[in-house]
């Protein structure tokens, strides 16, 4: 018999795999067997940004590496629930990244489950302290009195307008580069009416309603929060709806789509992009992250401002924030923690690049810098970051959650006219009940 016998072959195979296992302790494959963190770079960083935001983040990571001589391995994971599931499971199994992005609206659950480290002394030593952040963002980063995340931005729901159409409708403020001040919902509706009538448009404004529950939810919570407090409290276990306020909110929203027909009631994300890009509506209600979508549109001149006060006395902006967190890992060395903190500080200092995506930097040294103040339209709506209202804290709320989908679906049916305001309130209560009565996991 020539060549290998079966026994020899098996023995050879076995020793090769053993050798790989033994020599591979430092490699990711080896560390996955020993249960320690892989150490392929000084800082392992996870984020969820694709598109323009992803490109900006890549630039920031590169610049942060170059200025600090710290190596950073950055990984892009898919947005939403899959991201948070991976982050949670990696932290609970003791092998998380050193730094990761999290939405502040998703922070309460991560903090309560003890999956992330509090923002402690090491940050203070680097000058990362409360007084240098937009207060609303820092407050949202605080869970039970302890800060758990370093906010990098605020991205509010804002009012886009077509400059040319607004000028024709006489809505531009002669003294500045914004709209004439509006004090309440009547002023706002009058402005929309003027936009529609003067320009002979089918509709004055558009928001993405069909199959876009998150946008419906943002639009709703902004108006409702002018009148009342959070719709759930006690970590999400108590429904605290103000029925009268909610009915008033629904009636006002339905008035825009139904009564005066100032907005189309069936508009997908594509419809709203098309209508606003082509100048067929004067206003767009959407998040600031849509600014890059319209920046390149030829023949479209637009500006972005915060929403005025609508039903309540003060302006309110629905917002969320991206923040940097350090997931908890028992075996992380002091050196790695220091690198992580240094990297986070580096990203904060570079957040003027981040503002390009429409976000308002939360780090005041950048927010108040000349560089940002000159950035238009971003610096127009800095005020919205200060008036920010986030998702109510709870284990089921936050960006991309089932909760937003469920709430948004009810709101969409009010906007399309399928549900009247009173039944809308009842439907919200029913829908909330399934969340509030489920046993919280933490």
């Amino acid at each position: 018999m020539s060549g290998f016998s079966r026994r020899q072959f098996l023995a050879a195979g076995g020793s090769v795999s053993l050798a790989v296992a033994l020599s591979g302790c430092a490699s990711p494959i080896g560390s996955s067997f020993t249960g320690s963190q892989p150490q392929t770079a000084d800082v392992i960083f996870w984020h969820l940004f694709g598109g323009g935001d992803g490109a900006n983040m890549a630039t920031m990571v590169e610049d942060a590496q170059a200025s600090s001589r710290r190596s950073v391995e950055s990984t892009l994971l898919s947005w939403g629930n899959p991201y948070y599931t991976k982050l949670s499971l990696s932290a609970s199994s003791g092998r998380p990244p050193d730094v990761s992005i999290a939405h502040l609206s998703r922070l309460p659950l991560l903090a309560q489950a003890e999956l992330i480290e509090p923002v402690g002394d090491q940050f203070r030593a680097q000058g990362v302290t409360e007084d240098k952040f937009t207060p609303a963002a820092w407050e949202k980063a605080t869970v039970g009195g302890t800060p758990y995340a370093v906010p990098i931005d605020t991205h509010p729901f804002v009012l886009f307008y077509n400059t040319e159409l607004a000028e024709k409708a006489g809505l531009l403020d002669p003294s500045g580069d914004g709209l004439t001040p509006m004090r309440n919902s009547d002023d706002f509706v009058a402005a929309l009416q003027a936009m529609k009538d003067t320009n002979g448009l089918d509709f004055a404004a558009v928001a993405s309603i069909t199959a876009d529950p998150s946008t419906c939810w943002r639009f709703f919570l902004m108006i409702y929060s002018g009148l009342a407090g959070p719709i759930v409290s006690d970590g999400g276990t108590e429904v605290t709806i103000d029925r009268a306020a909610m009915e008033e909110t629904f009636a006002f929203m339905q008035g825009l789509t139904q009564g005066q027909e100032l907005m189309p009631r069936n508009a997908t994300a594509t419809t709203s992009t098309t209508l606003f890009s082509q100048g067929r509506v004067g206003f767009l209600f959407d998040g600031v992250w849509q600014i890059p979508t319209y920046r390149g549109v030829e023949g479209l001149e637009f500006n972005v401002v915060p929403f005025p006060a609508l039903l309540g006395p003060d302006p309110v902006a629905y917002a969320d924030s991206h923040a940097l967190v350090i997931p908890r890992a028992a075996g992380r060395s002091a050196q790695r923690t220091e690198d992580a903190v240094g990297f986070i500080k580096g990203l904060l200092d570079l957040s003027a690049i981040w503002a390009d995506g429409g976000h308002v930097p939360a780090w005041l040294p950048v927010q108040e810098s000349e560089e940002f103040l000159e950035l238009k339209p971003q610096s127009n709506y800095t005020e919205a970051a200060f008036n920010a209202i986030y998702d109510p804290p709870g284990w089921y709320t936050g960006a991309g959650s089932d909760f937003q989908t469920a709430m948004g679906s009810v709101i969409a049916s009010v906007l399309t006219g399928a549900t009247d305001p009173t039944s809308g309130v009842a439907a919200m209560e029913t829908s909330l009940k399934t969340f509030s009565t489920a046993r919280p996991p933490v």
Partner: protein
Amino acid sequence: MTATALPLPATEVGTKDRPESTRRAPRGENRAGWLFATPFLAFYIAFLIGPVLIGLVISLFNTTTVRAGLGEWAGLSNYADVLSNGDFWASMWHSVLFTLLTTPLLVLLPLAFAILVSRISRNQWFFRLAFFAPYVVPSAAVCLIFAFMYTPETGLITNAFGWFGLTAPDFFGSTSGAWFAVVLLTLWWTFGFNFILYTAAIQEISEEVYEAAKMDGASPWQQIRLITVPLLRPTMGLVLILQVLSSLKVFDQIYILLAGGPAYSTRPVIQYIFDTGFSSYRGGYAAAATMVYFVILVLVSAAWFLLRRRSNSANA
């Protein structure tokens, strides 16, 4: 039966008087058998029996997935919550609907194609390979390829509708379009497995039966209808139950291609369990949902087993 001098049929004598030793392996052989089965049993206990038992235990507790320990005792309340949860039953229905949509196609079409291929006289290997090859592609790769082809405006399948003057459904944005997308993908992807089962069964049918039929003047169509199909009935039964069980277990395609969307209208029960158990950390609740689902699968298998036993004894 009374004791008479009448000779009993040979077969009955055989079964009745079979000595003990032929039914049972000798002791030493028995021990060796267990020894050989040990590697399998170790894995079976570690990765199947063990997790099922752990799942059973944590379904009785309010366990948090991301924390060590069982959490507080919950009794049967997780089960009560699962059984009264509309989302759970909606996702159960999606798994059943997927089964109803895919099973007839995946039982009958591979049968038809296996018979057709068996009648080709040359280069059968090519057709077998062509039909079986997609089955070995990993689910993530299949889903990526189909996601390209389903892309609105630019996708191949979207455009193919245009060639026939039809408008393609919204494969990702509408529920019916999403079901169409995932069923077509599954058909292409898993077709080969059933095809191979049928092909193997066709090869088992003795050539002499066909020869005899040919001598009696049976046409090819009569041969298929009166010989091949009836002799494939046991295989069809097997393919049917395997297909029902694997369709009820659907997860990969729907999760990767659609993430259960739009608005969870295609989310199968396994994704529901995954979402509650891992994304929402509700380990105890998800374990209870798994147990309910497990019981349903066992009931389906048992029902099939009983039906089959009855039809077998009716045939005998």
